[in-house]
């Protein structure tokens, strides 16, 4: 997804880029509908999901507000309400709805929201690491060994139950670790929002921004790694 270019322009500018109604060619002042001919307007594919849903680029979003906005925009765009309209309007309604649904799904989940923001601000974050986070290296290696042992032993044997107990406690430990990472992420979210709210353009602010993004990327990637290990573990011990 090619969103890297959108962060330099402000949402307002992007809205303005589409300043003419596709139908009556009059100057656009309405947000989603032309005020003169009342035709639905295409939401630009270049718009990021925050702008699309009318939220600032923040990481703390009230889920109820987001849902309310989603329902409101669904009522505006859904193809059900364009059954009697022209083919052009039906096409716009379909692509607007699809975009809206993707935007909502992405912003609704705090982790996906943060990954998306990171993607917007600093490029892709989706690469899943192949090696464990440095501070977990030893533990993960040991865990892999235990898992291999567990897969090899006979079921319902005593060794099996010992290993199972061990894996169970490993699982608890990793899940705790995941929760810690999520708590750390939560703090970074707050810091990010505060920095954005201050809106400073100093070099200090820029350094702070870069630090938050870097740490966020690290935590997100570690969390994904740990989460995958845990689901692997759960699927093995059931």
């Amino acid at each position, binding site marked *: 997804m090619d969103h890297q270019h959108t962060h330099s322009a402000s949402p307002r500018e992007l809205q303005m880029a589409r300043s003419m109604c596709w139908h009556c060619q009059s100057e656009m002042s309405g947000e989603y509908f032309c005020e003169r001919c009342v035709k639905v307007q295409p939401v630009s594919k270049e718009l990021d999901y925050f702008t699309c849903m009318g939220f600032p680029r923040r990481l703390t979003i009230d889920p109820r507000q987001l849902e309310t906005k989603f*329902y409101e925009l669904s009522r505006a765009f859904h*193809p059900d*309400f364009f*059954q*009697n309209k022209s083919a052009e309007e039906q096409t716009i309604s379909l692509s607007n709805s*699809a975009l809206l*649904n*993707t935007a909502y799904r992405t912003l609704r989940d705090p982790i996906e929201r943060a990954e998306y923001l990171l993607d917007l601000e600093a490029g892709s974050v989706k690469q899943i690491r192949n090696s464990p986070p440095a501070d977990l290296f030893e533990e993960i290696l040991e865990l892999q060994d235990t898992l291999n042992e567990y897969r090899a032993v006979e079921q319902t044997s005593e060794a099996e139950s010992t290993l199972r107990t061990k894996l169970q406690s490993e699982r608890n430990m990793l899940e705790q670790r995941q929760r810690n990472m999520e708590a750390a992420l939560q703090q970074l979210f707050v810091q990010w929002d505060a920095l954005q709210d201050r809106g400073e353009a100093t070099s200090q602010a820029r350094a702070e921004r870069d630090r938050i993004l870097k740490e966020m990327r690290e935590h997100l990637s570690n969390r994904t790694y740990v989460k995958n290990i845990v689901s692997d573990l759960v699927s093995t011990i059931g």
Partner: protein
Amino acid sequence: MARIVGIDLGTTNSLVAYMADGHPLVIPGRNERAMVPSVVAMTDNGLIVGDSAKEHLTRSPERTVYSVKRFMGKSLEDVQGELAYFPYHLTEQGGVIRIKLGEKTYSPPQISAMILKELKQRAEAHLGESITKAVITVPAYFNDSQRQATKDAGMIAGLEVLRIINEPTAASLAYGLQQKTQGTIAVYDLGGGTFDISILKLKNGIFEVLATNGDTHLGGDDLDRQLADLFVKEIRERYGLDLNAYPDHMQAIRLEAERTKVRLSDAMKTTATLDLPDGKGRYERDLTRDQLESLTMNLVERTLGPCRLALKDAGLTPNDIDEVVLVGGSTRMPLVRQRVQELFGKIPHCELNPDEVVALGAAVQADILSGGTTDMLLLDVTPLSLGIETMGGVMSSVIRRNTTIPAGAKEMFTTYVDGQTGVDIHILQGERELAKDNRSLARFRLKMPPLPAGVPRIEVTFLIDANGILNVLAKDMRTGQSQSIEVKPSYGLSDSEVERMIEDSFKFAADDVSARKLIEARLDAGALITTTEKSLLEGGHLIASDNIAATRTALAALTAAKDGADPRAIRARMADLEQAAKPLTVALLNDSLTKGLQGKKVSEVT
């Protein structure tokens, strides 16, 4: 705008409904009954539909079609297992089932169209106007080809199908309108041939489906079969008579099984009776509700798995469900109600007639589309994940199951080999990790100029519209060349395949994960081998001969491990090789750095 009617095209019965002054009403026939049996018979005087056709089930079973919905959008191969149960003759032509009636053969959409026509005429007679537009319901778990087949049936019947909507969600519209419900509801829909469970959130007129699951091959028909099989077995034992040789009696026994089941929903015991052929007299069988329940227990249990999965996908527990709604005639069975009540921990709703509620909901949706109802909006989901096959036969999900529709998604793809002149796009549907375990929807090839591996950028866009119909667009981002295809599954996209895929996805999830890991490890190993060999060629002269030897040894070990079946061994040999090749990597880095600095003044460097 012309009036749009709502149609429930059911396995056993079909209904048509319309909206009058803000209330949905089913349209009765001349006999005052709202339900039209989904039965079509070929008589000497032509084709007949509904109640009169139902009488032919025992008279001319080989020329009377029932439960045709089970064959919509399927190939003959998909239904092999149950052909023995049907007295009419099925063949196949061009991947589509044909039903033989007299001299002619008919596709399932054609048979369904006859039922639709009957409903259309009924509506026209009742409303005194021509009806050309309809909303038709399908099981939520219906796949593309089944939805398409339903749409085709509408067209054949002379109806423009403005929307295909899911049965449980249609039911929720009828309930929502009636009760002004808010909160989270579960719709449990056990019909004649299919089972669906949908979890919805109702808020200020928005009906948002959170998750759906089901089994398109589980319904009242299957419950009846358990009873009919028991009767046939007992008759064989008691009278030495194999009823399978008597299609008319097989139909009679199927109908008696159904009636017995229905009676046992009210009574605790009943007697099934059947006149036997060849003057063997009359078979009578006392049956208690307990006996029926122990016969059908396993089938009822099978509906609970999809319920749990739907809850899980919605991120909910049974406690989060405010209300449970029962839909479909089979939910009249006390055992079904009891198990549903146990699972969700609340008494299920059944205020609205479970036979009519889907048609009523379809009428509400029809009213929304015609602009009559504006305060209600249904946001449904796609029941199965859609994806594309990537390197190594792995499916890459593009639109996950339970994504709100309309849904669009873009994925960027690139080439794997230098000079590759095309990219094959293989579109899949299902939940399994490997492409071969999922349903293949379509393939197409995008031509590209020959370029080094990884340079081309192919953007693939998937778009599912509000009917659940998929469109796919592939675009080369460098040339802007694009190719659009409509996914029209022309060959047997079977239900049983979908079910198997879903069931398998949970049964074999563990196998899949390891298979995927192996494929990924092999791909990574292949890439590492290629780059290391290249580095050896370019930088072999820069390092000591024992370093070269160590690298070659590690290289050979990885090449050997790559063909093995253990992804961990491959990863371990990769780590070994990276370690062994470190001097080479470092030497090459230094070399390029030195070359880069040559010819520059010292001041420019520092």
